[in-house]
């Protein structure tokens, strides 16, 4: 099951991620030293999109192919009306949001409040569901050969499930009937994002491309990764051919008493991209094989007895292969020795001209990963993390996994003036070893305590928990496969909060989000906040999952939120809102918009090459990018 099986829908199109960047530098949280230029484009300043709204949108995402449970696929609307329809966001609510956990951990950005629905100009939604918030995984920088600077050449995967499904009408589509029968309550979804544009002078600014797949989801499976076969570059980064981590799944079943297997390999985030159109770099003929011995990545000159070929060579050079197939390679109805090899031996990609092993599955087909990897915790909160262990895709019982807190460092935003993360260790409690049960699953219980404001001007603390399988020293993990938690400081809610109790909180948000404070409501100004009392009460009182939730960044502790709401809601005996304050101010002044709220009128069309060149020569030009954050994280680890 999961999207990585025969029964699936493939879509392709654009996405917009209008993230804001003032909050990408932890020192910008220091309100005492905040400067106006931090809300403008540039460095030093608010970096590449200071006036971003946080919106995440799916645009023009067209269904190009569906696969049926028998392994056949079609791409003709005459054969199934789902072909040519769109996968879109909600048409009744605001856009979803893309949200970092913290300036010091920007590598687990989640999508919140996204609804996905299958629709067209006639149908409102043949199905719709809510995307369970999940972070991107398996990011690889420089995966794309041509393109601009920053994150334009990076790609990553969002995998999650659609919940609260509604099925409006499946009668006209064989595919939808099969999908609904297989998975009526939730669906598995993968979105591979690529070629994201970060140049605000370009019309494509904040837009990127998405290759999506939707399929069934089983209750026994993790929601956010494939419990199957994991391919890993030997150095933990990428192979010589720029191949990234990727996943495959072998679904085994019986047909007339004979064991059969369908192998599905997800290459969307794996092979190197030539350009922003999703074309793959030609690295010769590539085939999935099961290795008949120990061969490491890069081994050349294998003989036919060294491996068992699984299916035909991968058609990755076909025109628009990514768009039309989602770059999922399928071999259906494996049987006999072929199936046996695929079930019990290490899989690999083989380059046929040189008989070269491009990349292999993890040693012994081992896999251990955590499902819920991003947490926001208030003191005394307890949460759960499900870990899964498997070998060659089969759940492993009795497997030990160790969990440990990373060393004190500065995470993804550092510098001389920046605080450090991962302390005090006493503020996060967890067992250091967990053991999987018969289902291959182990649940870690995580409890938070008041970290007592170790970072000063920014609330709470970030804790990164690494994990690894015991007895598997060669197991290779992606460097961002950890469990990240933001633990908030305790905040005692005053009995009758006044403006002075919440002003500092509101001012900090006002500084960090010019899209609000410079275009709508000056959050640091009493009169301005009073004018917008109703909408602020609404936004601060929505559930975390709601796309209207404020703050968009979801980094407000329960205590501070309660104080703000209490202040906004308190009424006097006369039924009027109190909106209490002890002092007085000079009154509201008009909000001056910042230049970053305006769109440059005559975009100089900088070429991708020029932009890349600029990025190379000015290392700071792409501050605020995931690339920069990732570099900071690695640099800070070593310090």
């Amino acid at each position: 099951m999961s999207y990585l099986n025969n029964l699936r829908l493939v879509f392709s199109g654009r996405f917009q991620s209008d993230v804001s960047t003032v909050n990408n530098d932890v020192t910008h949280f220091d309100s005492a030293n905040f400067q106006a230029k931090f809300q403008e484009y540039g460095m030093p300043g608010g970096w590449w999109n200071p006036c971003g709204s946080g919106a995440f949108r799916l645009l023009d995402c067209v269904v190009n192919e569906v696969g049926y449970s028998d392994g056949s696929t079609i791409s003709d609307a005459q054969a199934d009306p789902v072909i040519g329809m769109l996968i879109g966001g909600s048409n009744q609510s605001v856009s979803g949001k893309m949200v970092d956990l913290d300036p010091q951990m920007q590598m687990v950005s989640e999508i919140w409040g996204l609804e996905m629905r299958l629709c067209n100009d006639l149908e409102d939604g043949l199905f719709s569901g809510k995307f369970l918030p999940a972070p991107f995984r398996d990011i690889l920088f420089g995966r794309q050969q041509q393109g601009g600077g920053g994150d334009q050449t990076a790609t990553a995967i969002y995998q999650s499930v659609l919940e609260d499904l509604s099925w409006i009408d499946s009668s006209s589509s064989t595919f939808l009937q099969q999908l609904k029968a297989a998975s009526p309550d939730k669906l598995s979804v993968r979105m591979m994002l690529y070629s994201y544009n970060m140049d605000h002078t370009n019309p494509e600014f904040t837009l990127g491309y998405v290759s999506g797949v939707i399929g069934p989801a089983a209750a026994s499976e993790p929601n956010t990764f494939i419990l199957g076969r994991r391919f890993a570059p030997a150095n933990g980064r990428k192979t010589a051919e720029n191949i990234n981590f990727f996943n495959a799944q072998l679904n085994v079943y019986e047909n007339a008493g004979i064991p059969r297997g369908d192998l599905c390999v997800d290459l969307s985030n794996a092979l190197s991209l030539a350009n922003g159109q999703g074309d793959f770099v030609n690295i010769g003929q590539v085939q999935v094989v099961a290795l008949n011995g120990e061969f490491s990545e890069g081994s050349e000159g294998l003989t036919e007895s060294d491996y068992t070929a699984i299916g035909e060579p991968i058609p990755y050079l076909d025109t628009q292969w990514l768009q039309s197939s989602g770059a999922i390679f399928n071999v259906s109805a494996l049987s006999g020795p072929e199936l046996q090899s695929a079930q019990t031996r290490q899989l690999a990609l083989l380059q046929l001209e040189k008989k070269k092993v491009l990349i292999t599955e993890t040693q012994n087909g081992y896999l251990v990963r955590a499902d819920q990897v991003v947490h926001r915790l208030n003191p005394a909160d307890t949460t759960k993390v499900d870990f899964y262990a498997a070998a060659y895709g089969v759940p492993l019982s009795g497997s030990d996994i160790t969990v440990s807190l990373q060393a004190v460092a500065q995470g993804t935003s550092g510098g001389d003036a920046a605080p450090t993360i991962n302390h005090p260790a006493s503020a996060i409690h967890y067992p250091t070893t967990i053991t999987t049960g018969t289902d291959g699953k182990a649940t870690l219980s995580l409890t938070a305590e008041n970290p007592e404001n170790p970072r000063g001007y920014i609330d709470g603390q970030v804790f990164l928990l690494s994990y690894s399988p015991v007895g598997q020293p060669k197991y290779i993990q992606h460097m961002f496969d950890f469990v990240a938690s933001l633990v908030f400081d305790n905040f005692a809610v005053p009995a009758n909060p006044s403006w002075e109790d919440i002003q500092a909180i509101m001012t900090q948000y006002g500084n960090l989000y010019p899209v609000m404070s410079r275009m709508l409501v000056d959050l640091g100004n009493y009169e301005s906040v009073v004018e917008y009392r109703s909408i602020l009460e609404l936004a601060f009182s929505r559930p975390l999952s709601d796309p209207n939730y404020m703050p968009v960044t979801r980094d407000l502790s329960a205590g501070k939120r309660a104080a703000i709401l209490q202040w906004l809601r308190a009424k006097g005996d006369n039924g009027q809102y109190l909106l209490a304050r002890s002092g007085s101010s000079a009154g509201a002044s008009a909000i001056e918009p910042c230049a970053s709220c305006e769109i440059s009128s005559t975009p100089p069309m900088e070429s991708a090459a020029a932009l890349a060149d600029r990025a190379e020569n000015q290392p700071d030009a792409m501050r605020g990018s995931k690339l920069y954050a990732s570099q900071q994280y690695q640099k800070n680890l070593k310090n």
Partner: protein
Amino acid sequence: MLKLKKEVVDSIKSVTDVSQLHSYLQNAIELEHATIPVYLTGLFSIKQTSNSEASKIIRSVVIEEMLHMSIACNVLNALGGSPAINKPDFVPSYPGPLPMNVGEDRQLVASLEPLSKQQIKNVYMAIEEPENPLEFPVENFAAVSEQYSTIGEFYAAIIEKIKELGEPAFTGDPSRQLVNSQWFAETELWAVTDVNTACKALNLIVEQGEGTQQSPLDPEKKLAHYYRFAEVFYGKRLVPDTSSALGWSYNGEAIPLDESQIYKLQPNAKAEDYPAGSVARRFADQSNYTYSSLLNNLHQTFNGHPDKLNEAMGLMYELRLTVQKMVTIDVGDSYCAAPPFQYVKTNT
């Protein structure tokens, strides 16, 4: 005074069954909504930090038009009908006539244009003109022929018909009524469940729009829409004035309209006016989608899910922030990009 064909009012009078009244209330909903894009375009054309009084005045009218639309929906729901808001022809094509061809008597063209004294006079004040405007001093618009009835007469005919049909006509499910004191005061929006609450509600629409025969104030002591717009047109507050025969004159505090601080929005823009792939097109498509999502949401709000109004408020602010950025885009010939207010089904 904007008028509509007398046949419309005559046919309301000849209604014999409440179901025949539904289409006229649907027309009322469409009419109240149709003014909102017109006024919003003016509001969004004002540069931030400038023209703040004019901005407040227009905003106050927009909010009351939203109220009027809600009232008309409540009445239709109370009478067992179902408002239809989520369809392309719910939105007029601008420039063009208002729903029911209201204003054809004087060739009114509802248009989406930036704020100017000319637009205020020719469109805003024309839309809101009372049956007999009190002249403080305001010239009366041309007299019209007897083939036409006023909006006041349109609502009066509905009110009379509701009284005639009486309490049995109120078969609607009370849970479909929108009452939400967070956004609308209880003195302005209430549950419509019987003849009395329906007539009071419809009267409020007419009074807030037109004022009363004796005073420019509505029953809540706020200036009727026509006089609020006239304040911007004349550049001065309408204030009590004992030296004036009518007791009021445009002699109060100045309300300057600095037209240099108005974005010169492309009039009556359509998304298709902007080249595919341009920034203006992206913002036009997005603002259309957000606006359409708002209409879809309001459709749900008025079809059994009144709590959805909260989400609608979120969409209004998302639309506002999108458009505030959009109007800064120079699309050539010194024009700025403008939101098209087109109903679309998908986000492209």
